[in-house]
């Protein structure tokens, strides 16, 4: 196996206005590639009276990205993908919560926007690759096939949110930060050294389209108040909630149940049922899951046949857990070696072979390690 050969490519660098994507674009340019920067306008909140004007945050981010591109010395454009983003990411996000699942919008954005809508347009315009500031590694094998690996720095690794990429998408992906074992401070220092003003810009929120970070408020606005029961595993009502979408499996805080559990131990969200608008809570032990099924599998390369042993990651910033997984029809069936706590349907399971991403799928159902009483 060899590292990505450095023949000059025409590269479209997605620049969010943050420090990582700016340094990634700068590194790609420094490596001799012909780089063009593009900022994706993804939100369409009119905040000025001119029709279609963008919100101030977006303008600020796009200005920061433009400043960085000017310093790097590359052309820069803003592309309006707000409509696609709304359809494929925001509406999907709301619908998933409404269905009692916990989506990961960053993953969806990589799958549908950055490495689909953006990549398609880039390829049509004659670019060879899309470059982002993700921390992950692409390795090219001697036979030309590509593999996606965890970043050299495990603490910064973002391969989980890229696990949805198939080999065609991977063939045109460039992650210049993936080889760096570095802290955020060092990336900032590098940005500073390169004269990039975004060096001191604060990190962005996890979900870019919820500017204030208040996911519950955002969902309440979209889905309205829908009071329902909070029950224990036997079905006894313990309290009321204002919308089942406000909960995530494994959640402990914010349940607002007046009476403590008989054993005095904390209770967690075990199940969310949008059909009867009920949230079930119970002890930590009931969160233990022995296996899961997952749908819409995507593979980095050829789909594996028969059962295989892998390590799995079940949420962003989550740890690894050993599993046996097998593709049965279109469904991925996964058994954990040891019970795992708090697995939320809607999240992605990404399978790894060592540091190599094998594929991913969306968690549909889980099986309890202990039977519900």
């Amino acid at each position: 196996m060899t590292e990505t050969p450095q023949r000059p490519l025409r590269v479209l660098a997605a620049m969010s206005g943050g420090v990582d994507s700016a340094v990634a674009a700068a590194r790609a340019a420094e490596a001799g590639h012909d780089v063009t920067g593009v900022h994706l306008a993804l939100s369409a909140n009119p905040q000025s009276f001119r029709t279609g004007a963008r919100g101030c945050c977006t303008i600020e981010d796009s200005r920061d990205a433009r400043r960085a591109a000017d310093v790097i010395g590359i052309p820069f454009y803003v592309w309006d993908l707000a409509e696609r983003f709304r359809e494929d990411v925001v509406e999907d996000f709301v619908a998933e919560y409404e269905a009692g699942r916990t989506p990961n919008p960053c993953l969806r954005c990589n799958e549908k926007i950055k490495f689909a809508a953006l990549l398609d347009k880039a390829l049509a315009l004659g670019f060879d690759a899309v470059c982002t500031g993700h921390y992950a590694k692409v390795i090219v094998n001697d036979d030309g096939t590509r593999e996606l690996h965890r970043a050299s720095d495990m603490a910064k690794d973002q391969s989980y949110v890229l696990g949805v990429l198939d080999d065609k998408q991977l063939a045109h992906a460039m992650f210049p930060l993936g080889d760096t074992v570095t802290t955020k401070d060092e990336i900032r220092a590098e940005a500073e050294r390169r004269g990039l003003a975004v060096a001191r810009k604060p990190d962005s929120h996890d979900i870019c389209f919820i500017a204030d970070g208040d996911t519950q408020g955002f969902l309440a606005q979209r889905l309205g108040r829908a009071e329902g029961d909070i029950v224990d595993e036997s079905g006894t009502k313990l309290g009321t909630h204002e919308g089942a979408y406000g909960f995530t499996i494994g959640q402990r805080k914010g349940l607002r149940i007046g009476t403590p559990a008989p054993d005095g131990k904390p209770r967690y969200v075990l199940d969310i049922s949008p059909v009867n608008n009920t949230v079930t809570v119970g002890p930590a032990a009931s969160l233990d899951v022995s296996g899961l099924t997952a749908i819409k599998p995507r593979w980095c390369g050829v789909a594996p046949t028969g059962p295989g042993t892998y390590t799995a990651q079940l949420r962003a910033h989550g740890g690894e857990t050993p599993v046996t997984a097998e593709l049965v029809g279109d469904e991925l069936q996964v058994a954990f070696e040891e019970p795992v706590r708090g697995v939320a349907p809607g999240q992605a399971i990404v399978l790894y072979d060592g540091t190599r991403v094998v594929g991913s799928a969306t968690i549909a159902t889980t099986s309890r390690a202990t039977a519900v009483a």
Partner: protein
Amino acid sequence: MAYLDHAATTPMLPEAIEAMTAQLAVTGNASSLHAAGRRARRTVEEAREALAEALGARPSEVVFTSGGTEADNLAVKGLFWARRSADAARTRVLASPVEHHAVLDAVHWLGEQEGATVEYLRVDTYGRVHPEALREAIERNPDDVALVTVMWANNEIGTVMPVRQLAAVAAEFGVPVHADAVQAFGQVPVDFGASGLAAMTVSGHKIGGPYGIGALLLGREYSPVPVLHGGGQERHVRSGTLDVPAVAAFAVAGQLAAEQRERFAREIGGLRDELIDVVRKAVPEAILGGDPVDRLPANAHFTFPGCEGDSLLLLLDAQGIECSTGSACTAGVAQPSHVLLATGTDPDLARGSLRFSLGHTSTKADVDAVAQAIGPAVERARTAGLT
């Protein structure tokens, strides 16, 4: 490098640079009474006279501003406030829908914040306001019209408006007319005195003068309410210490623009016609925007069906050809041009617009570069499609 975005800004003329740099070393506030002030004032007044002569105006009708945007705001807001304060019933503003944002957003603001009723005048497929359309609009109630604002020539598609006839119609009803002549000056005959206009905007950097300087030509009988209050310079209409070097250079550029207008129209117009030919030859389905005949001699505007203007811009930029999709936006996000939408262009089609604007430094080589690049660029942009 083929610079074909002169309508955005055009290189400064050497004569203007000379006049400006000569003045940069001279001290003097044109409002001061001592010798330095008198010297500065003389420079300013000579510039005012030169510019007035170039535009068929009296020197007292030249009000210097910081540029076209400020002059547009002063005319639109100032005349509205003055007319309404003289007669509270006069709150109707008639504007063409193809105005530059400096006018469009100003009248919009009057509607939102000052109780104005803004009406957009009907335009034809070339974006032209016909005198009958203006007459109809005024006649609906001649007593409530505050002002009319219609640009002399359109910055995107180049169509020239019948300004004199429009002003004549408005004059029958005693209604003042403002025209933004930023693009027209130096390209078509612009005679303020003969136009019948109450106010007219011109800008320095569009005619080979410096940035940050412009003027509102203002009939002597009009006293718009100031936007900028202060020391009372410029007929008490526009306060602020005058930028003597910029004023001097602006006047030099203005004089040259007027003197060389015919030659410019002939030579650059010829080059522009060649540009239109080569584009049509390479892309037969390209649609020329604006009036094919009565248009700015330096403007060539096209719509390319099935293409995103932004994609074309990127592809041509990569070939060293600098042009524009027509309307710039702060965030750089392309919106379908309000000018094209006003002319009845389909919104999807409107996204494929591209403006080439020539200027005093344009050459045959620029046209050749477009001839080479436009065909493949359109083909590629079409593959990328409309996202």
